[in-house]
């Protein structure tokens, strides 16, 4: 079942045929392929790349787990099982569980509108979707304080009706949703644009209604892109620090998400605790990355099929 070996002749043909047909001519003096570079150049570049990766990615990651386990497994599990740490895990999961679906519900229709229709104000909508990428997360948090804070526009009304937004869970969910808003939509727009509207037109011509078109035609086409967007969105939602920090109020065991709790523990000289919670975050990130790779691989498979 060596598919790659079976596919190789076709691959070689795909490379060779165009150069024969179009008489590809290398630039004067430039090598035709990168692999024709001298061996030492290849080794040097690969070495630099690997060294860089090791130094800036692997080493810190190892350090996080190393610090977390410095006083042994018992200390690690005590730190992870601490009530405040668990409360922060719970809050982080709640924030992600609300903001990610919300971004799917908003992101898919937004991408659909932008990619499949043309209308006045379309570029304005695209700009609005990109806004959370452009604004610093701290500013995003401050916007919510200005709107919902006791001195803000809606503050007095909210206090009168005893509705808590900032310095409580709703504010944290709002801030998380805001900063992660572009991920799903941004992932889908280029994909949907590339796919064009022909299949949808065909479906409508054959008598499908709007919902059937979306469910049977569009969604199957975008599902891998959507999943990829959801995974990225989730990673950011769990890791968000700046915006959440502004609206959190930093109440221990109540309004601290995992990144905020890590900072608090670090400031209390509780390094094992800080790195233990950080290692949980890192594990979540690794799980996310693995999922991402699986999705990418499945996506490639689906395309190849």
């Amino acid at each position: 079942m060596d598919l790659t070996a079976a596919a190789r002749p076709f691959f070689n043909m795909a490379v060779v045929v165009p150069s024969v047909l179009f008489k590809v001519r290398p630039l004067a003096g430039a090598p035709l392929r990168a692999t024709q570079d001298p061996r030492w150049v290849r080794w040097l570049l690969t070495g630099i790349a690997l060294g860089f990766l090791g130094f800036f990615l692997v080493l810190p990651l190892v350090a996080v787990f190393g610090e977390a386990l410095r006083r042994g497994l018992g200390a690690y599990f005590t730190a992870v099982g601490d009530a405040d740490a668990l409360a922060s895990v719970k809050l982080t999961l709640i924030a992600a569980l609300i903001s990610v679906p919300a971004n799917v519900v908003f992101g898919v229709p937004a991408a659909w509108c932008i990619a499949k229709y043309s209308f006045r104000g379309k570029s304005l909508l695209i700009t609005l979707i990109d806004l959370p990428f452009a604004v610093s997360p701290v500013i995003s948090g401050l916007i919510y304080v200005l709107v919902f804070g006791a001195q803000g526009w809606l503050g007095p009304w909210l206090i009168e009706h005893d509705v808590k937004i900032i310095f409580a869970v709703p504010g944290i969910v709002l801030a998380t949703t805001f900063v992660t808003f572009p991920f799903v939509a941004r992932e889908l727009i280029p994909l949907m644009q590339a796919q064009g509207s022909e299949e949808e037109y065909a479906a409508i011509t054959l008598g499908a209604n709007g919902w059937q078109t979306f469910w049977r035609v569009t969604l199957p086409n975008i599902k891998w892109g959507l999943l990829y967007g959801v995974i990225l969105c989730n990673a950011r939602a769990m890791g968000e620090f700046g915006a959440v920090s502004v609206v959190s109020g930093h109440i221990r065991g109540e309004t601290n998400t995992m990144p905020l709790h890590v900072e608090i523990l670090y400031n209390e000289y509780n390094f094992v605790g800080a790195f233990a919670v950080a290692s949980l975050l890192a594990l979540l990130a690794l799980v996310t990355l693995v999922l991402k790779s699986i999705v990418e691989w499945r996506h490639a498979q689906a395309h190849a099929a």
Partner: protein
Amino acid sequence: MKTSNHLIFALLIFLGGTGASAKNIQLLNVSYDPTREFYAEFNPAFAAHWKAQTGDTVVIKQSHGGSGKQARGVIDGLQADVVTLALAADIDALHEVAQLIPRDWQQRLSHNASPYTSTIVFLVRKGNPKAIKDWNDLVQPGVAVITPNPKTSGGARWNYLAAWAYARRHTGSEAGAQKFVASLFKNVPVLDSGARGSTTTFVQRGIGDVLLAWENEAHLAQKEFRAEGYEIVVPSLSILAEPPVCVVDKNVKKKGTQAVAQAYLEYLFSEEGQHLAVRHFYRPTSPAVARKYAQNFPQLELVTIDAAFGGWPQAQKTHFADGGVFDQIYAR
């Protein structure tokens, strides 16, 4: 065994969420940075005391950060039952900006509503390699001084005013003091937003030759990092820092926690509260406890904010308001 108990307990809380029975009371204490360890010990002590007195269970939640930032949070709607901040000016803001408390809040408890006091000292590296003895050593070229930003940190404002008081004494003029403080801040490589941030900069990141710190913060850092051998240098003159406490009237009325919040603050002035303060290197305000632990705290000349700077509103306006003296010397 202990670990598994912890785990089960934590799991119960995790699953149970915030479900609370009728006589469970929750208080929120919004505090500044270096009080973390003190309140971590004081809160259970008060909870036990309150349980013995009334039978009610009280859980005290903590929020810590730079004093000015924390005050801003309460003004913006953080539902604090009590605030325990670094200086009176930050609590004054709760009255001025949001009318959360009456103007005369500081008269409601004894000792200017400050259950413990502290002062500003220097923390230097092992063996004091730059031979720092007093404030005038901090303006020497090549000495890196770590202090937080007076705009956001209460401790930093006390640092600044202590330096000012020293310089005014030795130069005899406000102009001389301004020049001295300006050259001191020329030696500051990083301004963190809170006292704890500055301590980590000095201790963890190894930046600077001397940290201007709360006396209690300096002792805590020395204790936490015994191996590094940090030394505390007490200058010839410093400032009497009074970190005050206050019930946030508007919030406790709404939550119905007035009585317990009041009792919580009063307990800070009790014998046990004062002993705990001493354990965490705060200077007690109770004369009896102060006499008992006199040898714990070195004697030095302490000026007060009222005598040396005409009180916090005046000092705040002159030095730390937008366009004030600090802005002028730091803008350069």
